[in-house]
């Protein structure tokens, strides 16, 4: 045990002495949270919208004035027909189109009810939901004011919301689980594979293997510090999400941490596996990027919802551990789901982890026997 601790101590010295490692460990998570966090804005100011006024009556004019008068919107386009809507969206500046039906005022007085459509550009899901929310708010205020004057019946203008491009707004609030998923891969898989390959490259691995340290002690000693640092990282990310963006973890923190540990183990075994395959640090970096990080970013559902992908990519993403991890921590963090809701995904991730551990342990043994000069 003492031999082992002397070795682990040295590993920590490596980490804390290398500025680049420290930046990757702590700088990147912090910046990612800030970047993704601020990209998801929670306030709305002077968003450009367009109106398609088919009514041209008092009610529609009033509503347009109210929209214009609010700080939230600038009406930058007045459309003449439904055909203009698509082109307007494609230009990209307009966040939403508000459509007033023909005979708006007449409908209100006759039926006491009318519908105003709001179509939002949901390629920016967060902005889209804000725009529709604020517009609906203004419509509701107006109809509330109307009901005071008209005593008979309840004339209500109900907003009808449609999301354009991305109907189900799935990527909402996804950034914290997504950032955790990527950061953990970077720290566990990327940094461990690099750390082990570095020893091979420098020739110190040979010396360690000749020493009384057992091979498994060397490997566990190399990855233990990264396991620890990954956990620290999760806590930093969660605290930042909470304090800077008021994003709480709705589910059990213990469950979340336990799932993260499983995922870290997966990453570490992946890193070990890579380190048994390659002899150069660059190659370790490239393989981790191509096999885990990039597909993890694109196909795990972090940025692009899996539901919107062609089926092929859906199947492809099923072999990626990050996809399952996101599907585990998203419900835990956002919906407050318990273990009963994620046990299947957890089982899949555990299976993948076990597979990687066995594979890397075997590969490592084979490498030891084979390497001869």
């Amino acid at each position, binding site marked *: 045990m003492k*031999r082992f601790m*002397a070795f682990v101590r040295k590993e920590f*010295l490596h980490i804390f002495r290398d500025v680049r490692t420290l930046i990757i460990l702590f700088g990147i998570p912090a910046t990612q949270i800030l970047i993704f966090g601020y990209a998801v804005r929670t306030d709305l100011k002077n968003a450009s919208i367009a109106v398609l006024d088919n009514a041209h009556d008092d009610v529609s004019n009033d509503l347009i004035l109210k929209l214009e008068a609010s700080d939230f919107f600038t009406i930058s386009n007045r459309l003449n027909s439904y055909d203009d809507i698509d082109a307007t969206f494609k230009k990209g500046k307009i966040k939403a189109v508000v459509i007033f039906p023909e005979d708006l005022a007449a409908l209100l007085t006759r039926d006491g009810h009318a519908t105003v459509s709001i179509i939002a550009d949901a390629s920016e899901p967060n902005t889209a939901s804000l725009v529709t929310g604020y517009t609906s708010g203004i419509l509701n205020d107006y109809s509330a004011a109307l009901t005071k004057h008209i005593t008979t019946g309840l004339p209500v203008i109900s907003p009808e919301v449609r999301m354009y491009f991305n109907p189900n707004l799935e990527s909402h609030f996804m950034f914290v689980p997504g950032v955790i998923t990527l950061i953990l891969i970077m720290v566990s898989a990327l940094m461990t594979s690099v750390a082990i390959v570095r020893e091979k490259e420098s020739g110190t691995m040979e*010396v360690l293997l000749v*020493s009384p340290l057992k091979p498994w002690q060397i490997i566990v000693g190399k990855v233990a510090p990264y396991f620890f640092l990954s956990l620290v990282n999760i806590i930093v990310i969660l605290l930042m999400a909470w304090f800077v963006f008021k994003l709480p973890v709705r589910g059990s923190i213990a469950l979340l941490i336990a799932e993260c540990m499983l995922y870290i183990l997966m990453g570490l075994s992946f890193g070990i596996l890579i380190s048994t395959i390659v002899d150069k640090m660059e190659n370790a970096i490239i393989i981790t990027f191509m096999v885990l990080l990039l597909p993890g970013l694109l196909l795990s559902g972090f940025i692009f919802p899996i539901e919107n992908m062609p089926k092929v990519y859906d199947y492809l993403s099923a072999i990626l551990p990050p996809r399952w991890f996101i599907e585990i921590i998203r419900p835990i963090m956002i919906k407050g789901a318990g273990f009963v809701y994620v046990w299947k995904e957890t089982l899949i991730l555990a299976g993948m982890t076990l597979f990687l551990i066995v594979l890397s342990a075997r590969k490592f043994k084979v490498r*030891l026997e084979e390497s*001869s*000069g």
Partner: protein
Amino acid sequence: MDREMAIEVRDLVKRFGSFTANDRLTFDVYKGEIFGFLGANGAGKTTAMRILCGLSRPTSGRVTVAGIDSGNPEAIKRRIGYMSQRFSLYEDLTVNENLELYGGIYGMTMKEIRQRREELLQRLSFTGYCETLIQALPLGLRQKLAFAVAVFHEPEIVFLDEPTSGVDPVTRRQFWEMIYETASRGMTVFVTTHYMDEAEYCDRITIMSEGRIVALDSPSALREQHGTASVEELFVKIARPKNTNS
């Protein structure tokens, strides 16, 4: 002559598939001697050395290192020291930290480490460098330190794998003085090299060619036997693989 044996090798064979890297090697290394292991690249030196160090198992034959059978590599590893041909200290750690690391790995207590460190640094006149990062040390000092680290835990046998490759002549000279000094304290030194002038410093040398031992004796005896003026000449004469000519 009945001297105590540090290493005993009998009919050692190591095969990789159909390739025979070591073909029935038999030799002894006596306690306290400097034993040179010579051979061209690919002659099987490294394979044999890896087996002696417990890194790899023989296909057949019997190997005993420091009195322990090669079937128990863990016990062998505790009794030997090793210095690789590549520089093997951690450059981002200080001299002290490197010594603490290797001392710790070999199971030395902190007290022992401190005590022996003082001695060692004094003997090498290294005292001013304790807190210096290895990467800031001049190359010659680093090489000496690497050797000092390999014998820091006072092993019975130290294996040096081409320890002086890429080192300037002055440093090589100093390095060999350290080896002599170590051997004089009773440690067995097993060294591979491709510098033939260094072979002359060894008590006994063995020359390998194509997986076999083709010569084994003291440098002077070998020169006499083969009627050559230097080990270099001798090596060219007997160790050149038959299929290559220059």
